Structures are given as C-alpha cells and as structure tokens.
C-alpha cells in the first residue's frame, strides 16, 4: 500500500471478523481509494431504459464522482460517455435529461454524434495540417468501457474487465425479475418526478441501513407512535392513508422482523423479505377492486398460475452494492452518489406500470413521499441517524464498528446466497465489507 492513511491501517486490516475499523467511514484517503477501486470498477446502476427510450434521448448522471451521459443513438444502441468535451474540457450536457440530435459544445462548437464520435469542428483548418476531425477517433468522447442492460435496468462499469453483469448480480437478479414480472405486460417506466436527499455522512451508511431490519423500532419510534394514535375517521385523500399505513407497519412486532428473512451474496448485494402483510399493505388490500383489476391484467400477461407465483414473492429492499437500493414490490429506486467522505446524495425514482390500474401509481407517489421525501416523517429520522453515526465515528472513543449480530448462523441457500440466522442478522453488512475488502485490497 503506497498511500499513507492517517489511521495507519491498510484497507485489508480494517475489515476483520465481525468488526470494521471506523477509518473506513471517516478517512478521506480511504474515500479517494473507494472512488478508484470500488466506484471506478464495479457495475454501477445508471438509469432505466424508459429514461432514454428513443434515439436522441439522453440522461446525465454520475458514476461515483464521474459525470457521464447515457444516450440512445440513432440505431437504437445505448452509449455511456464522459460528459466532457475532448477539446478544452467543458461539460457538454447540462440538463438532467432531454433530446438532442448531436452534443454541441458551448465553448468552440465542437459537435459530437450520439454515439460519441466527433462529427464536426468549426474552422477546422485552424487546427493545423491534420484533417479535423481526426479519422482515428482520438478526439471522440471517451466511452465508458462496459454498458449492460438487464431487463431495462442500465448498468455500466468504468473498468474494461471484470465479471459480467448477470454473474456479478448473482441471486439479487431475481429482485429485478420480481419488479418487471409484477408489471402487466412487463412494462415499467420511470415517472412522477425525482426526489433527492442528502446527509452529512459516508455513502456506506445508507447502503447499510436499507436492509437493517432492527432499526425501525428505535429510529422510527416517533412516527410509528404518531401514526398508531391517528384517528382513521379524519379525512384523507389517499396520500395520508398510504403513508400512515407504512409508518404503522414499521412498528411491526419483533417476531415479524426476526421471521422475515434476509439474504446476502458474494459481491455485497442483499435483499430482505417483506414485512407488509396482505392485511396491512402500504398499497391496497387483496379484496380491493384495484387489486382485482391488477391481478386480471397480470393474468393476461402470465396466466393464473404464474401470476400466483409472481404475487407470492415477498421482498422489500434489495441492495446492489455499491450504488443501488430498490423496492421491487413498491417500485421505488434509490441511487447513491458519494460526494465526499462525510457527504452523500441519494437520488430517488418511482416507477409507473402503464398497463396497471392508474390508482396504483397514485399510491406509489404517496409511498415515495413517505420513504424518500425529505420532509417525510420517516426519512428525516434516518438522515439524522446517519449524521450521528458519522459524528460518533470521528471520535477516538472506540475504533471498531461491531457487525456480529447473527454471525455464525449464516446458512447456504440453493440460489447461491447466504441467509441470515434471523431477519435482523447483520449478514448484509458482513457481505458488504467482505466485498469492500476485496475491491480495496488491490
């Protein structure tokens, strides 16, 4: 290890059996190395294909801290290029999304095709004897080497080599299947705007929390209690009803959380079972006419037997390490964007099922507001907790974070994952840090 770490530890020694050194969260040098070795190499989720549906449509995002453009070319192929003009470096695409014929730089008018090729340079004779644009492609936009679309979910990797996306996803690939299969006709689209929240803490804290099933009774105690005491006779236009149901469900008794199941896999990914019983679903109950119409639409796609199987899947959060967390059953997706060692942005999206009853999308918007809204009665306490953890970890009053809950009880499953001893096992954290250690070692 060439890089000196203030902690005096190498990343390999920061992850030990059942514990992780606090430097992994607070050391700026470690954060820089994470950007190179994890975000610079792993498959990162970028966007859904509905956000770049037609030729010319583009979407801008970040891979770690690298600004990139996802764009659909005229031939329908998807490209991911660095959002940087190859002339003097200006950012090319400014809007978060849009449609263009070409990307034209604001500075000296260099124009790039949708596939990244440099198409035209104004007053080319001024650049010397060589013909412009050069035929060898040396001034084309820099392409992100690997791009892969799994059932509409677009991933890319900044490394030219590494495991394929499907292999890398492993058992959590079934969560993408769950999300798509639950949509009648297999059609999903990002809709309903975007919500972005930030917190003063390391990027790992949010990724660790989404499958932490022990925290709701403590972190969310205030919203659980306030929702339980709420009279249902008071007027709701539906939005409050969905949110209050979700808050109450966070107060599920310990045996529900212990019994729901948590699974982790080799590359740090994990998913948890769903703690929404049919009677208390945050969306709508079984006997609801909207649910009946939904089931009918699903049966038209899959037939009754397969529909039963699809609806029997009970899954809440799925974490794809390092930058994605999504809820296949409730069609919510969060993308983690590290800003600095103690600052993180999370960009959140909701999906619409165009062939399902429209009331379900209305419910999804209300659900998004409670799980991802910055003024949510739930999320606010998560964000406060992340900041307190970050604060605490800067202290020298203890160097180790304990991740032993459920250790020793992990069980091999047929699908290649490990199942936690109980639903509140910290198996997902041990899996994440095992992956972290491998990425960071070399």
């Amino acid at each position, binding site marked *: 290890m060439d890089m000196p770490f203030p902690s005096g530890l190498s990343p390999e020694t920061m992850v030990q059996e059942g514990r992780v050194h606090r430097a992994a969260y607070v050391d700026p040098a470690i954060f820089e190395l994470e950007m190179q070795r994890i975000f610079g190499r792993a498959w990162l989720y970028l966007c859904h294909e509905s956000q770049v549906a037609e030729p010319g449509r583009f979407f801008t995002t970040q891979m770690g801290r690298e600004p990139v453009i996802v764009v659909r070319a005229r031939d329908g192929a998807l490209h991911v290029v660095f959002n940087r003009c190859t002339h003097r470096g200006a950012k090319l695409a400014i809007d978060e999304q849009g449609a263009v014929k070409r990307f034209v730089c604001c500075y000296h008018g260099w124009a790039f095709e949708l596939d990244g090729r440099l198409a035209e340079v104004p007053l080319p004779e001024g650049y010397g004897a060589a013909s412009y644009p050069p035929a060898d492609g040396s001034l084309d936009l820099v392409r992100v080497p690997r791009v892969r679309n799994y059932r509409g979910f677009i991933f890319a990797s900044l490394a030219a080599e590494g495991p394929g996306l499907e292999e890398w996803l492993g058992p959590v690939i079934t969560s993408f299947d769950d999300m798509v299969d639950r949509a009648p006709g297999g059609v999903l689209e990002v809709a*309903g*705007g*975007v*919500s*972005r*929240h*930030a*917190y*003063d803490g390391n990027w790992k804290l949010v990724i660790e929390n989404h499958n932490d099933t022990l925290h709701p009774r*403590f*972190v969310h*105690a*205030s*919203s659980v*209690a*306030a*929702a339980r*005491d*709420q*009279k*249902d006779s*008071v*007027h*709701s*236009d*539906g*939005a*409050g*009803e969905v*949110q*209050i149901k979700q*808050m109450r469900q966070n107060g599920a008794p310990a045996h529900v959380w212990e019994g729901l199941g948590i699974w982790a896999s080799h590359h740090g990914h994990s998913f948890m079972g769903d703690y929404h019983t049919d009677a208390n679903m945050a969306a709508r109950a079984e006997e609801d006419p909207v649910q009946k119409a939904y089931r009918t639409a699903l049966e038209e796609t899959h037939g009754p037997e397969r529909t039963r199987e699809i609806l029997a899947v009970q899954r809440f959060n799925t974490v794809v390490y390092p930058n994605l967390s999504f809820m296949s059953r409730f069609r919510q997706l969060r993308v983690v964007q590290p800003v600095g060692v103690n600052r993180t*942005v999370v960009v*959140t999206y*909701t999906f619409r099922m165009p062939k399902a009853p429209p009331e379900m*999308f*209305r419910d999804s*918007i*209300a659900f*998004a*507001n409670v799980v*991802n*809204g*910055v*003024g*949510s*009665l739930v*999320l*606010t*306490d998560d*964000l*406060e*907790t992340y900041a*307190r953890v970050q604060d605490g970890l800067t202290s020298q009053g203890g160097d180790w974070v304990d991740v032993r809950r459920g250790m020793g009880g992990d069980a091999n499953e047929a699908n290649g994952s490990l199942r936690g001893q109980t639903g509140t096992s910290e198996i997902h954290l041990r899996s994440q840090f095992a992956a972290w250690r491998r990425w960071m070692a070399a």
Partner: protein
Amino acid sequence: MSAVLERPAVADPALVALVVREAALLDAWALEEWLSLYAPVCAYWVPTEWDQADPHATVSHIYDDRRLLETRVRRFKHAMFHAQKPPSRTIRLCTNFRAGPMPGSVVCSYEVAEFRNQKHRRYVGRAHYQVDAAGLITQKRFDLIDCDAVQDGISIIL
C-alpha cells in the same frame, strides 16, 4: 402567475392577518392552535417541481392531507423524534402579499429561517394559501425556489 404580475391585486387584509398569525404560531411552536387554522379537508404541500400541477402524479417533499397533518403534529410530542433533537428555532418572514388567482386565496413571498444543532438554514419561496368560507385554510402550498435541488431532511413545518 403572470396575470397576477400584470394586475397586482391587493390582498384581502383578513387573509394577510391569517398568514401572519399562522407564521407566528409556527414560530411559537403552538402546533395544536396552528392546526386549528386548517379545515377538516385540507392539504399542506411542498412540491418538488416549480409550478407542479398534481400532488398525486408527482412526488413532493411534503404532501399532507388532514389525516397525515395531524400525525405530523403529534410526532413533535414524541421523545424519540430524533431529527428534532435538539429542537429547531424558527423565524418566518412573509411579505409582498397579493391576491391569489381564486377568491379566498393569497400569495406572498415567504422565508423560514431555521436554527438547529449549530446550523442555520434558510427556506425561501412563494407561499400560496387557499381559505374556505369559514376562514379556515384548505391548502397551504410552499414553492421553494430550490424545490428541485438536493435537500437535506426537513424536520420542521415550513
């Protein structure tokens, strides 16, 4: 909004007084009394998009109907409302009042200054109030100028 700018209509003084009272009650943390200013069917809305048309088709930072608004107020009494520990201190400025586009509506420029946990934060925007015949608020809408920006958690009532 452009019609408002072309012919700025003078705001109903009773509505201006209501908005000032609403702001004062929030700053004083008199939340039960504050809630009594709202109608049995009402909404408190902080959109994520400037001129957002529909709270049910697009996500919001906050969209509370009456049932959720009561839950929001009740939560402040709970000892484990972590994001309000320590509690916020707020001061509101509401100014540039003009009549809204509908009868019983008023629009103003609105700022909430919040101090909590050694941090000072400002929320600036356009507030829009709709009031019913009984003088109760049926909708408060607060359009933040940075509604579509990354936001930290908002644990106070704006």
